[in-house]
């Protein structure tokens, strides 16, 4: 009797979740990765610009930490 109630309860919860949430809102759906984007010329240029910017800024941060330490 208790098991039957439990099963009904589980079924009710399952129905509630599946009717209320979109499929990709389920926690388990988020385990799947979204496919990687195929980047074109201008996008690749932007990312290379970012890499150069980061190298420059990291050098600046390291310099700043070094000067502060001394």
């Amino acid at each position, binding site marked *: 009797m208790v098991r039957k109630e439990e099963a009904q309860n589980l079924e009710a919860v399952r129905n509630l979740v599946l009717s*209320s949430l979109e499929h990709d809102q389920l926690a388990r759906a988020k385990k799947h990765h979204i496919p990687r984007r195929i980047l074109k010329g201008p996008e690749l240029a932007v990312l290379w610009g970012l890499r150069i910017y980061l190298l420059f800024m990291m050098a600046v941060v390291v310099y700043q930490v070094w000067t502060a330490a001394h």
Partner: protein
Amino acid sequence: MSVGSQPPQTNGIAGDEVVVITHEDVDRAHDRVRVSEARARRGFFPRARLLWLLVGPGVLVMLGENDGPSMLAYAATGAKFGIGFFLPFVVLTFCMAIVVQEMTVRLGAATHRGHAELIFDRFGPFWGWFSMIDLAIGNFLTLITEFIAIRAGLGFFGVPPWMAILIALVILYAALMSHRYWTWERITLAAAAFNLVFIPVALMTHPNWHAVSHALITWQPLPGFNKEVLLIVLADIGATVTPWMLFFQQSATVDKGLTTKDIHFGHIDTVLGAALATAAALATILATAPLFAHQMGADNFQAAEFAQALQPIIGRFGASLFALGMVEAGIVASITISTSSAYAFGEVTHKPHSLNLPMGQGKAFYSVLTLCAVAAAGIVLIPGLPLVYVVLLVNVVAVLAMPPALVFLFMLVNDREIMGDLVSPPWANVLSSGVVFVLTAAGVLFGISVIAPNIFAALGGK
């Protein structure tokens, strides 16, 4: 729901795929049912209830960004320049924040993925890990500055530093203890409402409303152009839009369970948050404007020093409110910033990351969140630590993080594969790319000014 407290279960089959329902799903589903019920009804009160149910991430992110250092920046603005150019300028910076944050609402609602996760998946592990680590370092340093503000604010009341830090950690932990996004959000919103305490403080200074309205309409009087003004301009921009905001609002939108149907309310939430935060920021400038009128130097003032300087003007009660406002700013920011770090960690490592998780299922998420806060709080208590240097480093790291975060945001929100018809229209792209350019340039300039202040010597000033 009793079932929801149990471990993940295999409850049924949809097509060929086994559908696994978790505690997180059940909690989110309950929130969505309330939203659906409110949406199904017509009339003013159901619409108001729908708004009440859907506001949260936008208000939290905007009031969260009115954090300790930001409120100090606004206080310094009022004390150094009084009523004038900076009043409408701060309004403009919040308008820019709306343009940026609106994109995170659309991204979160359309993809149900956080910002770090989307960067990782769409642009590869290098940029994914970079974004997460960069955000984590920036957030950690910012958290230290929040605890500095809390310590300084409560110090005004004679609270010893260790107790001030303990109070902040207890509040942070109390919000987490519900293991429920909805409850966490409401507790944090209640705490964030205290950001508006700067409004009565401003009223106590009896501002010249004619001068205020004149400044808001004409942007006059102009402060002139020198190094000091440039730094305040850049600091005020930096006080309005920072990298953690992008990550936090998108992750919170996902955790709250917003869908594409809710984007309109997400926009209202963002604008409402910006309006409240603008009011608090303007009030802070007005509150400290009398210090400008009395020609009191406010260089390097901390929270308690501003409160003490204002005491002869607005009395002990007003000064206490000001100090309490600083404490609130630090506490709310420490809650939201540590949460954004935990979200980003979970998104990149694909570990469960939700405030709906019970402790057992969200060990990594809660551990990261707690560790960040406790470690930052602990550092503030180390005697003789160069905290001023930490504050300076925060700005540099923020500069490092901002351009990549903004560029990825812009590329993601125009990614038709994940956004479908919700990609930005051309006019919105023109607007947002302009804002992205201004914010990136301002961030870089601010970084340069912090690292090599002599570069701006040609502009004059101190």
